């Protein structure tokens, strides 16, 4: 197996791995969006900014407080999650009875503010974040070289995605959540504190984005624009997957990352647009998305 369709296997598997890593980020971010959308019916436009915040908090922890990567992996989502809780309580909750489009516009404004503030303080050039010592180096798998950190990213995001899926689909808390999505008034009548559930859900979705940000920090340089362009691709992923489904977010996230990686091998010019092209094709056949229920 020296060549596969004229592509050296090293390059092929390298791109597949890169695709899988991008796919991990797509999966976590679209999962967070799906969780938030499920209960709040709001497209969280600030998701990209919150992902960027996660990376920045990790960077700050290391450079200002000397807190290492592993602790940051817990602390950053917590801090950003609390920030999300405050946003929900003081801003988003005020729009509860309005058209959901106002939620999109509000979070869009928030994204502008957050990105602008970070750009003022840190410029747009990007800050380096070292790979933690334990994950330096890589494995030679015979057919390709696997850097440890990249393997860790794919593994960690898979675990986080599956745990989230399990929590929502199989636990009691998840059942409350799904009930509140279906019928908030009735759920409240059963004695479940739905506003609290909503706030915590938003905080959890935001924390997921921040977690992805910490994972991303050592791979991409930490900069204020890192979430801005990613979020549009994630929106396309979400449209393709169909917003209703948690599993849809995970599967399409990884799948589309892979497709994007393969496109980079065979036809690099299209790699930036391939997801949008797939979105058009899916919309033509299934307007509700691959895993979505028809609205």
């Amino acid at each position, binding site marked *: 197996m020296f060549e596969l369709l004229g592509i050296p296997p090293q390059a092929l598997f390298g791109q597949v791995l890169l695709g899988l890593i991008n796919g991990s980020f797509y999966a976590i971010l679209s999962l967070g969006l799906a969780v938030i959308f499920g209960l709040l*019916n709001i497209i969280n436009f600030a998701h990209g900014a919150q992902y960027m915040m996660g990376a920045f908090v990790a960077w700050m922890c290391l450079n200002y407080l000397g807190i290492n990567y592993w602790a940051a992996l817990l602390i950053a989502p917590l801090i950003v999650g609390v920030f999300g809780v405050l946003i929900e309580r003081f*801003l988003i909750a005020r729009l509860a009875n309005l058209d959901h489009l106002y939620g999109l516009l509000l979070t869009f404004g928030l*994204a502008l503010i957050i990105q602008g503030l970070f750009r003022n303080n840190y410029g747009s050039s990007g800050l380096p974040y070292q790979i933690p010592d334990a994950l330096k180096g890589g494995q030679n798998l015979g057919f390709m070289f696997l850097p440890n950190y990249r393997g860790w990213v794919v593994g960690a995001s898979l675990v986080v995605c599956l745990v989230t899926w399990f929590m929502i689909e199989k636990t009691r808390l998840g059942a409350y959540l799904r009930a509140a999505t279906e019928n908030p008034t009735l759920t409240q009548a059963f004695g479940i504190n739905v506003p609290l559930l909503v706030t915590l859900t938003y905080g959890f979705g935001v924390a997921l984005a921040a977690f992805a940000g910490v994972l991303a920090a050592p791979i991409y340089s930490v900069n204020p624009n890192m979430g801005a362009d990613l979020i549009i691709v994630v*929106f396309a992923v979400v449209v393709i997957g169909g*917003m209703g489904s948690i599993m849809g977010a995970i599967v399409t996230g990884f799948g589309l990352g892979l497709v994007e990686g393969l496109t980079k091998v065979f036809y690099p010019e299209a790699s930036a647009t391939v997801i*949008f092209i797939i979105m058009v094709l899916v919309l033509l056949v299934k307007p509700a998305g691959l895993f979505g229920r028809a609205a």
Partner: protein
Amino acid sequence: MADVLSVEAPAGAIALADTSRGTERLHRAIFIGLAAVLLVAPYLAYPVFVMKVMCFALFALAFNLLLGYGGLLSFGHAAYFGMSSYVCAYVAKNWGLTPELAILSGVLVAGLLGLAFGALAIRRQGIYFAMITLALAQMAFFFSLQAPKFTGGEDGIQAVPRGKLFGLIDLTGDRALYYVVAIIFMAGLLLIYRIIHSPFGQVCKAIRDNEPRAISLGYRANQYKLAVFVLSAMLAGLAGATKAIVFQLASLTDVHWSMSGEVVLMTLVGGLGTVFGPIVGALVIVSMQNYLASLGAWVTVVQGVIFVVCVLLFREGIVGVIAKKIGRPL
């Protein structure tokens, strides 16, 4: 989604009942006043600045036609604005077309793009619609980035000739061009006013307010939505193409998704679903960008704050508030 975005609907309904004659007169007075202001503006302010405001005002008017009267939030209007600006710049520079033909080709391409994107997007509603238009527009952005033969890539198309209007009137000077842009702007505004107050516009508003009812009355809602989408795209294209001639430049900024956000902001500040609101909104935002430019990234922060404040406390926008005060739709 039909119920809340229609900020203007109740006021409009009252006005139709008893003060429609007076409202018409008021609107005519505003049109005449606006024309008078535009006539003297280049003597009072820097003409290129006023032209910039007019281009963006037309863009915001086009966007408002879709959101305010069609109830469709497109988050990808930069695509039509930017692509039209590229086409106009390209044909004016490389094919040597006269400005009116260059603008026309920009508008046509924007219309075709609007037809293709709109046909896909109207299959879903509300937030999905917004996300799909956004993602489609991002396709246009990547195309612009990766087709440097056509768009000049990161550099854009520079030194676009302003040319001679109809091969006769030289537009190289700012003054001559100013009046051409003013005429384009007023024509666009009048066209939109005409569309809104036509039977077609009334049906669009009915669909915005209650789509199932409009369908049960026998209107083909999707055809109306697509039509208003294409009209809006073409008018956005008109604005983009005109801007390319004014600044002799077509660049990536005009196709980037932040431009789509900016036009939403202009419309929101001025007043969603008001006729004249987008003009005021464009004036406010463009002036802010011009005069606060020295603040760098703070402009983004200020814009974000305005966005949040508008959504939370000021949903009617400047003109919307005035309209409420005087009890007439504006």
